[in-house]
C-alpha cells in the first residue's frame, strides 16, 4: 500500500508580474513564504527537493537549477533532488513527483518550488523561448506558439459545438474578477465582457484578455508522509488521487478534433478513481485557463459540464461562487499570469488555503475537496485531487 501524503506548508512570491530581482531572489521569496506558512518546519527538516522551472537556460542563462534553488532556500536534500521540466504543466508534475517519492517511502519530507523568470531586459526574447515550447523544428520555426495552437482548438470547439466568443470571454471576466481578490495576481482588476471583446486582437478568436500574460512568479509547497504531517500541523491537506496522460506532441499526433481533450478525460478518470470520488464531490478547482477556451474544454473533460456544453456552463454561472463548483478562485492563469513552472504549484497553494479555510475573501464556503489541473499542451494533462485532513 502506498503511504498517504499530505501538504503541510504552502506559499507564493509576493507579487507576480515583472519581478524586480534575479531568479535567485524570486526563489528566495517563494521559499520564505512557504516556510513562513508553517513556522514549525525548518529547512533542515527537508529531505527531498524538487524544482519546476521551464526555461531558465534561456531567460536567466542558468541550468543546474535544482541545487541552486535548494541552496537558496537553505535546504540540503539528503534523499532526493531534481528539476522537473515539462513546459506549462511542470508545477503539478513536481508535486506529483514529490507525492511518488513520499508514497513509496523514499523520503518523508519533500519541498517543491516552482519558479519562472520570464521577463528579460529585451522582452521579445520570451517569444523566441516560447517557440521552443512547441515542436520547434516543424511548428515553432513557422512562428507557431501557444496562442495559435489554442486558437485552433478554439476554432474547432466553436465549429463542432457552437461555442461562442462571448462565452469564452466570460471565462476571462470571471477569472479577472476573482483575481481582483488576490494580492499576488499580475492583473488584480476585474474587467467587463465588452472590455474582453474589444481588447487588442492576438489571434482569432482571442483578444489579449483571452490570453494568460507573460509573468514572473514563484510558489512553494512542503509535503510529508501522514505520520510526519500530524506532527507539524493540525490541518494537513491530503493528496487523494492523481492522474496524468499524454498522446502526442506535434499537432499531427493529437486527437483530430482539437476541442476534444481525451487525455484530460483519461487523467481525470484515473484521479477520481484513485480518490474514490466523482466530479460532483469537487467543491473548488484550480484549472489551466492558459486561454479562455481552455477552461471551457477543461470543465467538460473533468465532468463538471456535459461534453460540448462548457460554453453554457460558464455563461450560466455554474463555475462561479454559488454555482456547482468554484473554478479558479485565485484568478486563474488569466488573472494571476502564467510563470510556467510556478503555475501548478501556485494552484496547489490556493487549494491548500481553500481546504484549510484560510483563503480570506476568496474562501469557497465549506470547501472539502479540491482539484488541480495543469496542462502542457492540448494532449498532455496532469490532475491532482486534494482533500481536507478531517474527511
Amino acid at each position: 500500500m502506498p503511504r498517504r501524503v499530505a501538504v503541510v506548508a504552502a506559499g507564493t512570491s509576493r507579487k507576480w508580474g515583472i519581478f524586480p530581482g534575479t531568479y535567485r531572489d524570486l526563489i528566495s521569496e517563494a521559499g520564505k513564504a512557504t516556510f513562513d506558512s508553517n513556522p514549525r518546519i525548518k529547512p533542515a527538516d527537508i529531505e527531498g527537493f524538487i524544482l519546476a522551472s521551464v526555461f531558465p537556460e534561456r531567460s536567466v542563462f542558468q541550468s543546474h537549477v535544482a541545487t541552486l534553488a535548494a541552496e537558496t532556500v537553505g535546504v540540503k536534500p539528503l534523499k532526493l533532488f531534481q528539476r522537473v521540466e515539462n513546459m506549462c504543466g511542470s508545477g503539478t508534475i513536481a508535486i506529483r513527483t514529490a507525492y511518488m517519492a513520499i508514497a513509496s517511502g523514499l523520503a518523508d519530507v519533500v519541498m517543491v518550488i516552482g519558479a519562472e523568470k520570464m521577463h528579460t531586459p529585451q522582452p521579445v526574447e520570451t517569444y523566441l523561448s516560447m517557440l521552443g515550447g512547441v515542436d520547434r523544428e516543424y511548428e515553432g520555426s513557422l512562428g507557431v506558439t501557444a496562442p495559435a495552437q489554442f486558437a485552433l482548438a478554439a476554432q474547432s470547439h466553436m465549429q463542432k459545438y457552437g461555442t461562442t466568443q462571448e462565452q469564452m470571454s466570460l471565462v476571462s471576466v470571471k477569472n479577472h474578477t476573482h483575481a481582483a481578490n488576490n494580492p499576488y495576481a499580475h492583473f488584480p482588476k476585474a474587467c467587463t465582457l465588452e472590455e474582453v471583446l474589444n481588447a487588442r486582437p492576438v489571434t482569432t478568436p482571442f483578444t489579449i484578455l483571452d490570453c494568460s500574460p507573460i509573468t514572473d512568479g514563484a510558489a512553494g509547497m512542503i509535503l510529508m508522509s501522514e505520520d510526519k504531517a500530524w506532527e507539524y500541523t493540525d490541518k494537513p491537506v491530503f493528496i487523494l488521487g492523481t492522474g496524468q496522460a499524454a498522446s502526442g506532441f506535434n499537432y499531427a499526433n493529437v486527437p483530430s478534433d482539437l476541442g476534444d481533450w481525451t487525455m484530460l478525460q483519461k487523467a481525470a478518470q484515473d484521479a477520481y478513481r484513485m480518490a474514490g470520488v466523482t466530479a460532483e464531490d469537487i467543491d473548488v478547482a484550480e484549472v489551466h485557463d492558459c486561454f479562455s477556451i481552455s477552461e471551457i474544454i477543461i470543465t467538460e473533460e473533468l465532468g463538471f459540464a456535459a461534453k460540448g456544453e462548457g460554453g453554457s456552463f460558464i455563461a450560466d454561472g455554474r463555475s462561479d461562487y454559488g454555482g456547482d463548483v468554484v473554478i479558479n478562485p485565485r484568478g486563474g492563469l488569466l488573472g494571476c499570469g502564467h510563470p510556467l513552472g510556478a503555475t501548478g504549484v501556485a494552484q496547489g497553494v490556493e487549494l491548500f488555503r481553500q481546504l484549510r479555510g484560510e483563503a480570506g475573501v476568496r474562501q469557497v464556503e465549506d470547501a472539502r475537496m479540491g482539484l488541480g489541473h495543469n496542462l502542457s499542451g492540448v494532449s498532455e494533462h496532469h490532475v491532482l485531487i486534494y482533500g481536507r485532513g478531517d474527511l
Partner: protein
Amino acid sequence: MVEKLTWDYVYGCDPVPQQTSEFNKLHEYYEALNEGRLMTTKCDACGQVLWPPRTVCPECMSGRLSWTQLPDEGEIIVFTVQESGAFPGFTLPLIFAYLQFGPVRFIGKIIGAEPEELAPGKKVRLQPEKQEDGRILPAFRLI
C-alpha cells in the same frame, strides 16, 4: 590561436532548423521543398505514413523508411489569424491552419491570402518560403 564566436549567428537563438546532411538525417525533406514537393516518410515494414518525417518508425520500430510525396492538394480544417505576439522577423498577420494532406494533418502557415478568403474546407497547395540565408520552410497558398 583563440577561436572566435560569431555573435550575430548563434544556433541557440535560431528558430529555423539545420537542413543539411551534416546536421540532419532528414535533409531530403528540405531538398524536396526546394523542388516544390512536400515529402514525408513511409514505413516500409508497416506501411504507416508518418508526420513529422522520421528515421525510425514509432509504430513498429523499423528503421526502413522511404520518402513518399503527399498529395498536391490539402484542405483547411480550421485556421487562425495572428495579429500580435510574434518574434521579430515574422511578418504579421500570420495565418496558421490545421491542414489535412492525404493521411496526415499538421499546422501549416498560409501565405498570400486575405483572412476573409479563408474557410474550413478550402483547398491549399505548397508554396515553400526561402529564407534569407537560403534555407527553406514550408508554407501554403489557396488554390
